C-alpha cells in the first residue's frame, strides 16, 4: 500500500503533465524515495493511479538504472559503469576491488544493509572513465586507492 503522503504527492504532481500517464516516472520516484525500492504492489498501485498497465510501470523501472524494481538496496547504492570506455580503463578491476572491500558479490547487499553493489551500462561519463555512481553522485577517474577512500568515508 502506498502511504497517504505518497498518494497525495502523486495527485499534486499530475497537474504538471499533459496526460496522466506522463506522471509515471515522477510517481515512481516519489514511491521509491519512501521505500528505497519498488515492490510488485507498488507498481500495481502506481499503474492504477496513472492509468496504465502494471507492465508499463515495470518497463520504465527496468529501463532507467535509477529505479530499483523488486530489488531492495542498501543505504548506498554503488553502480559501476562497465561499458566500453570504462572497461578499457579497468572497470572490471574496480568491481573486483569493491567486491573485496565490501565483502559481497556484484548484485548483493552488505549484511549491515549499508552498501549494494551493481553494474550499469554507460552513465555518460566516458571522459573520466572508469567511474561509478553512488546514490545521486558521480565518482570519476577511479583508482584502487580512491575507491578505498570513498568507501571508507561512507562506512
Amino acid at each position, binding site marked *: 500500500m502506498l502511504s497517504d503522503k505518497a498518494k497525495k504527492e502523486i495527485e499534486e504532481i499530475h497537474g504538471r503533465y499533459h496526460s496522466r500517464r506522463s506522471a509515471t516516472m515522477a510517481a515512481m520516484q516519489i514511491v521509491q524515495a519512501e521505500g528505497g525500492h519498488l515492490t510488485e504492489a507498488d507498481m500495481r498501485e502506481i499503474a492504477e493511479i496513472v492509468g*496504465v498497465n502494471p*507492465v508499463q510501470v515495470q*518497463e520504465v523501472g*527496468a*529501463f532507467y538504472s535509477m529505479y530499483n524494481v523488486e530489488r531492495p538496496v542498501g543505504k548506498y547504492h554503488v553502480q559501476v559503469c562497465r561499458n566500453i570506455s570504462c572497461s578499457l580503463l579497468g572497470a572490471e578491476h574496480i568491481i573486483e576491488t569493491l567486491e573485496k572491500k565490501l565483502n559481497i558479490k556484484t548484485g548483493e547487499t552488505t549484511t549491515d544493509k549499508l552498501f549494494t553493489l551493481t553494474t550499469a*551500462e554507460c552513465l555518460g561519463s566516458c571522459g573520466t572513465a572508469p567511474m561509478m555512481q553512488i546514490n545521486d553522485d558521480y565518482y570519476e577517474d577511479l583508482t584502487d586507492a580512491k575507491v578505498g577512500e570513498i568507501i571508507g568515508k561512507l562506512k
Partner: protein
Amino acid sequence: MPKVKINDKEVEVKDGTLILDAAKEAGYIVPTFCYQADLSSLGSCRMCLVEIKGQRKLQPACITPVLDDMSVETNNETVSSARSAMLEFLLSNHAFDCPVCDKAGECELQDMVHKHGPHKGRHAEPKHSFHNKDYALNAVIVKNSNRCVQCQRCVRVCEEVVGRGVLGSIGRGHIQEETSFLRTYLDCDHDGMCIEVCPVGCFMRRPYRFKARPWDLKSTKTVCPYCATGCRMTIQERDGEVVRSIAMPEDGFNGKMMCARGRFGYDFLNSKGRLTTPLIKNKDGVHEPISWDKAIDIIKTRFARTAPEKIGAVASARLTNEALYLMQKLMRDVVGSGNIDSSSRWNHSVVEGFVQATEIPKGGTSIYDAMDSDAIFVLGTHVSDENPVTDYVIRNLAAANRKSVFVATPRAMKLDSSAQMVFRYKPGRLAAMLGAIVGKFQETRGDKLSSVKGLSPTLSKDLEELSKASGISLDDIATLVTRLNISEKITLMAGTELLRGGDGIKGLGLLRDTLRALGKEVLVMPILDRSNQRGAWDMGINPVFGPGYAPVEGKWKGTEEMLEAALDGDFDVLYVLGEDIQSMFPDRSFATMALSKLDFLVVQAAYMNETAKMADLILPGGSFAEKHGNYTNQEGRVQAITKLMEPPGDGKTDLDIIWLIGSALDSSFGPNLPREVFKEIQSKVDMYSEVEPTGFISADTGEEPVYKFDFKEALVGSGSVELLDVEAKDAEIKIGTDGDHPFMLLTGNHLFHSGVMSMQSELLKGLLGKPIIEMSALDAKELDMNIGDLVTVRGNGFEADFVLRIKEGTPRGVIFMPENYQEIAVNKFYERKTGIPGVNVTAQRG
C-alpha cells in the same frame, strides 16, 4: 511523385513511400524482423539496412521514405555483409535449441540465417539466459525468451491491435525481455496475436506444443465459423486431429488477425460428442440408429402427407450459402411452404427492419472503405466481445489514420478506450438516444431535412425528454452533433443490440437519412455475430423475403410464429438445421412446450443438442471442416470454406442431406455439388451474379486465383432494394425490473463464446471457467459482494448460480450474463415479449 532507382530498376512511387515498399514494387524483397505493416514503426532490428548512394552509412529501409532521384542498393556486398553481421549479433545470445522448438521449420530466424548467413559465430562470451525452462503465460501461451530477437512485434500488436497492452519490453539491450508484468499469469484476451506475430519460437501455442512440424500437417483454407467478421484462416490436421488454426496474412482481409475463438476454438472439431448416424425415436422415447434410406423415406412420407402451411424449417446462420439456398428451394419450390427462418433469437419482423436500416440489400461494403470515413459511429454492438477482429481493425486504423470513433452501447467494452466519446445509453433506450440526435439536427438544421422520410416534426421539441429517457445528457448529444456536422464521410456500424428487440432500428434509418440530407456520404455496416448471418438473409432464409430480398407471395411464419402455431396444435412438422431452438429461443419454457406439441420434429446437427434430444428423427450433419461452400460475412464478402476431412461415421454434409430429401420428393431437384449450386445461386440471385468468392477454386482451371489483401471482387452486389418495403419500427422495450428484481439482465456473446458451437470447444470453455455474471463495482459494494463470490441470480421463476466478476464501466442496476452456457439455460430468465427481464442477485454465504 518521386522516381527512385532500386538496384537496376527505376520505379515511380507515391510521396512518403518507404524504401522497403518501393523495393517491393521494383521486385526486390528486403529482409525484415521488426517491421510489420499494421504496426507503428520501430526500426530497431536493422535487418533491413540498405545502401543509399551518396550516404555514408547504411539506412533502415523500413523507416526511411524515398526521395526523388534516390538510388538504392539492396543486395550489394556492403549490404549483405551488414545483414550477416546483424544476424551474428542476434544469434550471439540465441538458444540454438531448434530441435525442441515448436517454431522450427517455419521460423523467420532460421530462414533468414539460411539465406543471409553467417554460418559461423565468433562470439566467445557466455550467452545470457533469461530462464532455464519455458514458462506458461496463460492457458494458451507458453514463452521462451532465450530465442527472442527483440523485435517487439508482440508488445506492439498487443497494444495497437488488440488494445490490451499487457506485454512490455523489460530491460535494455541484449537482456531486454518481452513478457508480462513480472512474468505473471496473463488474464488477457487470449487471442494469441502475440504468438502469430512472433517471428521465432518465443511466444508459442500451448495446445500445439510438441504436436507437429509444419511438414506433418495437412491444411485447408477456410473461414472462421464463429462470428460474421469472417476471418480467413487455415486449419491444419495431423493424423485426423485438427491441431491448430492460423491466420492467412497474404490472403484474408484480416491479415494476421484472429481472436481467441478463431485461433483456439477449432478443437470442437475433435469433440467426441459427434453424431455419426441417423437416429429415430422409438416407442420408449429412446433414439436408435436407422439407415439413411429409411430416414429419408420417413421424411418424404411426412412432408408429403402434411399440409404445406403446417410444415416449416429453421436453419442455422452457420450453414453455407449453398446449403441455405438449397434448403429454401426445398421448402418453397418442392414442399410449397414459405415458413422458414434463420434464427431462433430474433423475431423476423425485427430482422426485416434491421436489413432495411442497414441497407444490406444495397450490396457489400468493405470494412476498409468504412474505415476511410472521418467519423465511425459504433452503435448497439459490443464489437469488442462479439466481433473481436472488427474491434481490432477499428482501433488500429482509427489510430493510424486519425479517425474519430464514437461508441454507443449499454455495456462497457474495450473499444471505449479508442473512442472520442462514449455514450452509455440505458438498456433498451437506443431509440431515445437516436431520437435525440436526430432531434438536435432538426433543431439546428431543420430546414435541410424536409426530404427525410418518416421524420416526426416534433423530435426537436421532445429533446429534453428523449435525453432523459436515454440517459445521455443534452450537452453530449450537442457535442456529438457538432462532431458529425464537421465530418464529410460517416460510417454507422450497428449490430445485435438492435436485433435483440428492435430497439433503435427506425432511429438508425432516420439518422442515416438525416446525415445524407445534410450532404454527407454515409455508409452503414451491419455487425453480426453468426458467421453466415448475412448469407442466410441473402439466400432468403426469412418468411417475408426470398433470395436477393425479393418479396415472397403469401403470408408465412418465422420461428416464433411457428412455435406459437405449434402450441395451438396448428403446426405439424418442423425441420431444424444446425440450430438449437431450445437453448437459444428467448423463453425456454415456451420453446419446450411448443416443440413438444409438434407431430414430427427433425433435427439435423453435428452434435447432440437440447433440441435434438426432443427430435423424432436426428440426422448427423457435417461440421464446417467437412464441406466445401461459401460464407458471406457482415461486409457482404463472399469467402470459400474448403474441406479438410470427411464427416465421421455415417455423417453427411448438410448440403448432401438437403439434396437427398429434395430429390426424394422431386427427381428434378437440381444439382448437389457445391460449385454447381453456387452457379445456380449466381444465375438466380442478382446480388451474387458478379461475385468472385475469395478462395473459391475456379471450376475451369481447378486452381485458386491469387488475391489481394482486400479483395473487392468478393463483395456482393445489390439486390431487390426497392422491393423490400417494410416499415421499420422502433420497438418500445419494456423493462421488467421492480422492487424485488432490481437488476436489468443483459445477455450476449462473451469474448470467448459465440452461440452453442463454442461450447463444444474444451479450450474455450476452459478460458471462461465457471459461469459468470458481470456487475458494476458500486452495486457489488452496496450488496457487500466481491470478485469471485458465488452468487445466485433469480428471476422469472428460475434461479442459477454464478461467479461474480466486476467490470469497470458497467452501469449501475445492470448485470451481464454470457448466453452460452450448457449447464445453465440462460433463456429461462426470459419470458417472451416482455423486454429486458428484471432479476435479483444474492450472495451465497457460509
